[in-house]
């Protein structure tokens, strides 16, 4: 609750800062301060949420459900956003004139993320998702003179609106099929035996719409183009924080509403999971541009995260938390380095290990984490996901399939590592002025975080049982 309100308020603040503050750098500091504030407020709430004394106490009519699980998730999201600001703050400034507005939009997205994490009715789910999406359409198109950015924005917008329609249709059918006539996600009466047709139809619509948001195949088509076209800073943001929020919403809805009849729709998830893993991993292999490769890799990672939706048990929730942290930190880190590059192709990374060893080392850690090598958070997250899926008996083959694709993923992540370490440096890859000391420190911290979580995942998961 703290985070929702504060993020909205801070968004407005940032908006005005855009109007009143002429300096381009000030909004960044303001944003960092805001996120810190949010993080602290959220942490306090998480700390005392049982006693309930230290946070805004608004009667939400039970439309929000705040528990340690989603508070932990919000904490993870905020931490990642903080990292994102610290690493990429300067790059946000370079996108265009409206620095304050960009940050404002990001705060609005955070608000949407928090809603999507805590919603208790389909209405707030819808609003949360829209609040997440609409600023993103704008951020995607924020590099106005770049045709790619324009194109991405239009594609994203059209397809996003389309998926909104789908989601609404789903909500309508669920509402219609629910004899209780309620939008509350835990108040959906399914009856005995197989679920009513209308709910079934609505459920499929919801799966489709949410799959779209988390870019799961075959509804992923927007992802590569949008991630590729958007200004890289914002790609970094939306491919991580927004995506995991989508998953969180996904899991939340299906756990609370349809968890009991899981067997009746699990096949769909299996289908989507396998297809996502297949398309994401296989298509990523051929990409020459690192940015686009990361876009496909985000699809591939989504396939892994789909396992949480597949499993829907405690382990899956833990896994989702871990995955959020691991995947977000690593991806933000890689993007932070990528932004500094003059050349986004894999060749652009050639010889980075020789010219900028720290950058290369951190990038390596991030990529290893994405691949899922032990001692990195990426391993733990994948491991938890696999365990969750395995605990859900009967479909162990899915675990094996996932693992095979994880091995394929090494193929494209390691291409970058190979370029960095095993190839000779080409032309000047990086403008050295861009690499400030603080940037390096932040990058190193991110890498250390990855390893710390990799060794001791309780750092993240433990909060859930607070």
């Amino acid at each position: 609750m703290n985070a929702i309100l504060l993020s909205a308020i801070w968004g407005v603040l940032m908006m005005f800062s855009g109007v009143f503050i002429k300096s381009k750098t000030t909004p960044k500091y303001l944003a960092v301060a805001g996120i810190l504030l949010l993080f602290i407020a959220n942490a306090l709430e998480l700390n005392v949420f049982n006693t309930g004394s230290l946070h805004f106490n608004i009667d939400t009519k039970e439309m929000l459900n705040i528990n340690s699980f989603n508070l932990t998730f919000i904490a993870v999201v905020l931490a990642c956003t903080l990292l994102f600001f610290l690493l990429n703050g300067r790059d946000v400034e370079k996108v265009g004139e409206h620095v304050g507005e960009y940050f404002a939009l990001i705060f609005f997205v955070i608000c949407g993320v928090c809603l999507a994490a805590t919603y208790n009715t389909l209405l707030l789910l819808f609003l949360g998702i829209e609040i997440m999406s609409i600023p993103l359409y704008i951020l995607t198109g924020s590099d106005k003179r770049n045709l790619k950015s324009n194109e991405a924005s239009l594609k994203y917008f059209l397809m996003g609106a389309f998926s909104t329609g789908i989601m609404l249709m789903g909500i309508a059918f669920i509402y219609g099929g629910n004899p209780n006539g309620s939008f509350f996600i835990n108040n959906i009466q399914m009856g005995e035996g197989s679920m009513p047709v209308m709910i079934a139809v609505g459920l499929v619509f919801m799966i489709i719409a949410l799959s779209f948001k988390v870019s799961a195949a075959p509804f992923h088509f927007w992802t590569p183009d949008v991630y590729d076209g958007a200004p890289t800073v914002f790609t970094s943001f939306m491919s991580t924080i927004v995506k995991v929020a989508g998953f969180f919403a996904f899991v939340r809805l299906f756990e609370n509403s349809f968890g009991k009849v899981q067997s009746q729709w699990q096949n769909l998830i299996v289908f989507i999971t396998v297809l996502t893993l297949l398309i994401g991993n296989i298509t990523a292999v051929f990409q020459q541009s690192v940015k686009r490769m990361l876009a496909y890799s985000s699809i591939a990672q989504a396939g892994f995260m789909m396992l949480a939706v597949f499993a829907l048990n405690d382990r899956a929730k833990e896994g989702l938390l871990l995955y959020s942290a691991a995947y977000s930190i690593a991806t933000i880190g890689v993007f932070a380095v990528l932004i500094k590059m003059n050349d986004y192709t894999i060749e652009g990374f050639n010889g980075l290990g020789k010219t900028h060893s720290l950058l290369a080392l951190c990038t390596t850690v991030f990529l290893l984490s994405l691949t899922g090598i032990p001692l990195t958070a990426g391993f733990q997250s994948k491991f938890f996901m696999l365990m969750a899926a395995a605990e859900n008996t009967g479909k162990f083959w899915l675990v094996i399939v996932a693992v095979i694709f994880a091995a394929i993923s090494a193929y494209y992540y390691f291409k970058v590592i190979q370029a960095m370490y095993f190839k000779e440096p080409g032309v000047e890859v990086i403008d050295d002025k861009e690499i400030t000391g603080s940037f390096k420190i932040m990058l190193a911290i991110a890498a250390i975080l990855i390893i710390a979580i990799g060794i001791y995942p309780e750092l993240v998961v433990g909060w859930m049982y607070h």
Partner: protein
Amino acid sequence: MDIKAYIALSLTLFTIGIVGVLTRRNAIIVFMCVEVMLNAVNLLLVAFSNMHAASNAAKALPTFASDAQIFVFFIMIVAAAEVSVGLSIIVMLYRNTHSIDVNFLNRLKN
């Protein structure tokens, strides 16, 4: 009136929207088709709300039929917001390319 009639109508409109999205290349028309889809949903929601109201009334239960209509209201809000954003994106695109053909731009592919 049975709810099936409304469902059929609504789905038909929804499909018209989808087919429109699929067949048209003008970004504005495509967007309008999305609006048709939203309206189909709105209609359906209202119909469902009245359906629940009817059945609850029959069982002498309190009706929550307003919920759906409030929902529709919010959908309209969102639609309005989307329209403002969407149109500004389309305008921006038009300014840069003098075209609003959705297939005109396909630098991003593969």
